[in-house]
């Protein structure tokens, strides 16, 4: 099979998966009342945007995710870089960071709520806390990988300063794993914000889904879930494509 034919098959297969999911959904809605059909769900989605309630929820969630993700990058990258470059910090805090990485961070949300009260601050802190550890852990791993290679010797022979090493050596060398870290960080921040909103919030898509579930307003619930999935999927896909472009073995 030629490369072009293979690509066409893969593209067709990928489109086929989407069609299959939609068909399964349509079939399920005929079998049970608990799954609303495609049409009422899409109608609710459109109505939600026209009336504004869905737009407001989307804006609140987007704000929580953006602020949280921003803080996670601002804190997680330097932390991961420091752990990767400094042996003392690495030895002291590696087990702590690895341990916290394994803990389901959402469990800290009630603590954040009792500190900040219900609202945007608690949600974005939750998103930041969740995304910080994957970003830090993956940055550390990538930096150590580079440090084991020949590049640090080059840096030493050129007498590069710490700042020059960061900008000229490490950042380009870890660009590809860093993109993976950012993509996963984004996903984790989105999930954390949604779960947090499910539990307690003043606005957001998670809150809308939870309310719709409580009222058993199924078309509304499916519309919100569909929107969350679409937002997450689109964000993830965009970052994944950027990542593939950056990866060294991409021709």
């Amino acid at each position, binding site marked *: 099979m030629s490369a072009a034919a293979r690509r066409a098959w893969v593209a067709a*297969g990928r489109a086929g*998966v989407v069609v299959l999911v939609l068909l399964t959904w349509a079939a399920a809605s005929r079998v049970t009342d608990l799954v609303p059909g495609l049409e009422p769900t899409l109608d609710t989605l459109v109505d939600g945007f026209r009336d504004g309630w869905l737009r407001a929820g989307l804006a609140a969630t987007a704000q929580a995710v953006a602020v949280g993700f921003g803080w996670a990058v601002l804190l997680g990258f330097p932390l991961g870089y420091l752990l990767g470059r400094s042996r003392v910090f690495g030895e002291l805090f590696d087990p702590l960071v690895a*341990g916290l990485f394994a*803990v*389901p961070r959402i*469990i800290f949300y009630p603590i954040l709520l009792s*500190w900040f009260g219900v609202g945007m601050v608690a949600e974005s802190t939750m998103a930041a806390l969740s995304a910080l550890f994957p970003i830090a852990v993956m940055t550390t791993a990538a930096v150590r990988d580079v440090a084991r290679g020949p590049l640090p010797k080059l840096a030493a022979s050129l007498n590069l300063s710490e700042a020059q090493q960061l900008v000229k050596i490490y950042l380009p060398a870890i660009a590809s794993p860093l993109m993976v870290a950012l993509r*996963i960080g984004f996903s984790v921040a989105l999930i954390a914000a949604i779960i947090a909103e499910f*539990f307690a919030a003043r606005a957001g898509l998670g809150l809308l889904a939870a309310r719709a579930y409580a009222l058993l307003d199924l078309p509304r619930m499916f519309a919100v879930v569909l929107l969350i999935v679409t937002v997450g999927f689109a964000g993830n*896909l965009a970052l994944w494509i950027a990542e593939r472009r950056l990866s060294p073995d991409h021709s």
Partner: protein
Amino acid sequence: MRAARPGAPRPIPARLVRWLLFAATVAVLEVCARAGMFDPLALPAPAQIFSALLRLARGEEFYTDLNRTLVTVVAAFGIGVVGGLPLGVVFWKLPLVGDVFEPYLVTMYALPTLVFYPVLLAVMGLGPAPIITIASVMALIPIALNTMVALRSIPPMLPKLGRSVGCGTAQLYRKVLLPAATPLAVPGLRLGFAYAVIGTVAMEFILAVSGLGFRAGYHYRFFDVPEMYAEVLVIGVLAVLFNALFGVLERRIRRDML
């Protein structure tokens, strides 16, 4: 091993410094809390959290929650392994299928699986079934992906060598492919387990009738702040413990391979 220079002070082991830092943090928190620097409804003294932990450990409810959470995690992880490993093999055997599903798996990895929880709640009812379903999908994805990557990275020379010495298909899988893929596939299992834990606790936290995640949220809603911290502590310690266990397994397996 670092060789100490003669005369130089012996390096202090990192483990000791870590525990000292930890003890110092707890002590500072205790003193500050007793001095009334924190709102007791936001951050109770460590001693209070500890006595709440003892109170919880004497009750029966705690063990019901612990049992529910552990059973759910193990069930989800088990399904993830049983489904994920063969799926990884299929994606490797049929690269076209692997390429078709890869972007979906990579994006589902971290993403929308959890938001289907209310959907499944509506369909399956309140109980362990919807949690196990979603947590097992969350565990399955990294396991399938890592298995595929592990098998794809085996040098083609190895199976050829196996064939040339007369391996049958079963022997080829058991004696050649399995050991060659293990070092890369085990981190997938570790990640799958972590996702099973995260998913289970998060969904219990959103809406459930028992489980450690549910109980932490429950204590928050009833303002039992020390109890809430105690539950969080238990979940944290359990997660760290299981992670360390997988770490030991991973190191042992790698040593056996080399």
